[in-house]
């Protein structure tokens, strides 16, 4: 029997049991759709997060000191170990394009005129290079040595009537100290600007560490120190050399950091690329885990096909007998039932892929992520659908092929 004939006959049989075939297919549709949706979501999430970070981040080295075996994310457990002298020395190293501190300023409130809002975290003392000037929507980058600040839209929106470029705000820190800064720029996004901050949208204020942080911290201590330092290489290619130079300096006796690190703290120098890999790794695991759960529903779908095919073989015993009586070979009967199972699998896979693509689109819209389709998975899904159909149809089809025509013709 030709493949075309078995396709036609199988299709007739599927059409003959529309409701049953639909329900059977639905199992595969849901399974494939779940896989596609979660993979799409995972890929889109990865693209969304990494897309935010990736530009300009691969030549950065994030440096902090924390207790050994601290674990956790970048900067976790970091202590104040870097002095302004260390930052200056790092800047002078041959392979270093830029070096600047990154340290959160402990604050109590911000005031704009008579409008005072509490702010406990999110005020970050750093260098001007930390902010991408292309991300400044209005105004300019703050200047080192000046009492200036750049706000993100979420921070600007804290005040009634928004804060705009040129306004002055007062930042109060614990111990009744305060500092006045001029707002010189507003960012175009409230998302975090680096791995130390996380990627969520929170109100953030960026200030020059020198002089704002040094002034405020200097009131409390003789040797103000930073939580972390960011060192930039000339290019992503030289980032390893730059890291080695920075490590050599920071661990040498010449640095202040080596004193403060002592024996209890461990220095970590992580490149942006490594951090991206870590994030990617975590996201991949999450995606794999969720997809794994989705695959379970696909297995359930496969069992559904096998079950229905078995019922179908029993129910059509007499038809099998008729076909054999009029000259159908075992192979013909096997092909017919396998084709039927494969068709159910293919329909399920195609339907599931379409549904999954739509669901993936809806999910990324809802989560406000850039949609990124894993097209290779679409192909895999259809392949898996056929495979699911054939594998789950194998045993029922084999049973059908082995049916004794004499018994089958007598079957009521």
């Amino acid at each position, binding site marked *: 029997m030709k493949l075309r004939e078995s396709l036609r006959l199988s299709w007739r049989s599927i059409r003959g049991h529309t409701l049953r075939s639909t329900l059977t297919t639905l199992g595969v549709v849901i399974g494939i759709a779940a896989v596609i949706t979660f993979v799409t979501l995972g890929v889109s999430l990865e693209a969304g997060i990494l897309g935010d970070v990736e530009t300009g981040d691969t030549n950065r080295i994030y440096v902090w000191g924390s207790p050994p075996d601290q674990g956790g994310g970048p900067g976790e457990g970091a202590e104040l170990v870097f002095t302004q002298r260390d930052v200056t020395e790092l800047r002078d190293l041959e392979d270093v394009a830029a070096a600047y501190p990154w340290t959160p300023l402990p604050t109590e409130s911000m005031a704009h005129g008579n409008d005072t809002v509490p702010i406990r975290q999110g005020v970050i003392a750093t260098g001007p290079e930390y902010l991408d000037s292309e991300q400044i929507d209005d105004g300019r980058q703050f200047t080192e040595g000046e009492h200036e600040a750049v706000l993100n839209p979420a921070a600007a929106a804290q005040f009634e009537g928004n804060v705009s470029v040129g306004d002055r705000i007062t930042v109060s820190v614990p111990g009744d100290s305060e500092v006045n800064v001029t707002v010189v720029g507003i960012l175009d996004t409230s998302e975090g600007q680096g791995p130390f901050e996380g990627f969520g949208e929170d109100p953030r204020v960026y200030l020059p560490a020198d002089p704002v942080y040094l002034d405020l911290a200097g009131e409390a201590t003789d040797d103000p120190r930073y939580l972390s330092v960011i060192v930039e290489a000339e290019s992503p290619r030289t980032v390893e050399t730059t890291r080695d130079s920075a490590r050599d300096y920071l661990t040498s006796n010449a640095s202040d950091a080596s004193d403060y690190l002592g024996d209890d703290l461990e220095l970590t120098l992580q490149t942006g690329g490594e951090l991206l890999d870590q994030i990617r790794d975590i996201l991949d695991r999450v995606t794999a885990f969720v997809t794994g759960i989705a695959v379970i529903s696909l297995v359930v779908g496969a069992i559904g096909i096998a079950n229905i095919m078995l019922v179908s073989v029993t129910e059509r015993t007499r038809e099998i*007998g008729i076909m054999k009586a009029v*000259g159908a070979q075992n192979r013909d009967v096997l092909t017919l039932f396998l084709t039927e199972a494969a068709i159910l699998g293919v329909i399920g896979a195609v339907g599931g892929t379409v549904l999954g693509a739509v669901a993936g689109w809806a999910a990324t819209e809802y989560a406000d992520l850039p949609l990124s389709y894993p097209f290779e998975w679409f192909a895999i899904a259809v392949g898996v659908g056929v495979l699911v159909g054939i594998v789950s149809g194998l045993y029922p089809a084999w049973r059908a092929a082995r049916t004794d025509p004499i018994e089958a013709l007598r079957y009521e």
Partner: protein
Amino acid sequence: MGDDPAVTLGDVRKTYRVGEPVHALDGVDLTLDRGSYTAVMGPSGSGKSTLMNLVGCLDTPTEGTVTVDGTDVTELSDRDRTSLRGDEIGFVFQTFNLMPKLTARENVALPLIFQGVPGSRRTERADEILERVGLGDRGDHRPNELSGGQRQRVAIARALVTDPTLVLADEPTGNLDTETGAIIMDLFDEVRAAGNTVLVVTHERHIAERADRIVHLLDGRVERVEPLRDAGAAG
């Protein structure tokens, strides 16, 4: 083809072993000449069904030979026996045994699918045979849209579509009223008149009397052969 008889059974024995061996057929010799019309009668348990399965190449004997169209069935593989069955035997059953989801035309054309006949040729041939059994206008109907007599006519058309050596009918009127049964039996007369070999298994005397001769089976043996008329003089 040639001068061989359509079917020959030589000292055929069929033994089922279900605890005590049961001799369903116990040394049967039977020859069906080409173009002949034979009826087989016998009480239940006489071996009618076993004889039918053997002649229809659905089963093989424990001992003895079954020759269909000059080919010894006992020598064939399962595969070749299936091919021979598809080519040389046309079945007509008591319960019609049509494919419920296929139209009359598709049912008639079904055996040709397994012979690899192309689609257009199949349709052509099926329509031709349906016309012959008087159902030229029912090709698109499904079995559940046809009367019992019409269904049996579709089944006969299906049996004839491959132009088989032998048309094998098992109680063909068992599910039909007397009047419809008579019409069906008239159709068998026509089939025979067209040159086909016919074997009808029945327990009804008036059905069997349509044949040239009646073979009486009892306890797995041929009890007697009752000639009714000369071959070729169907009535």
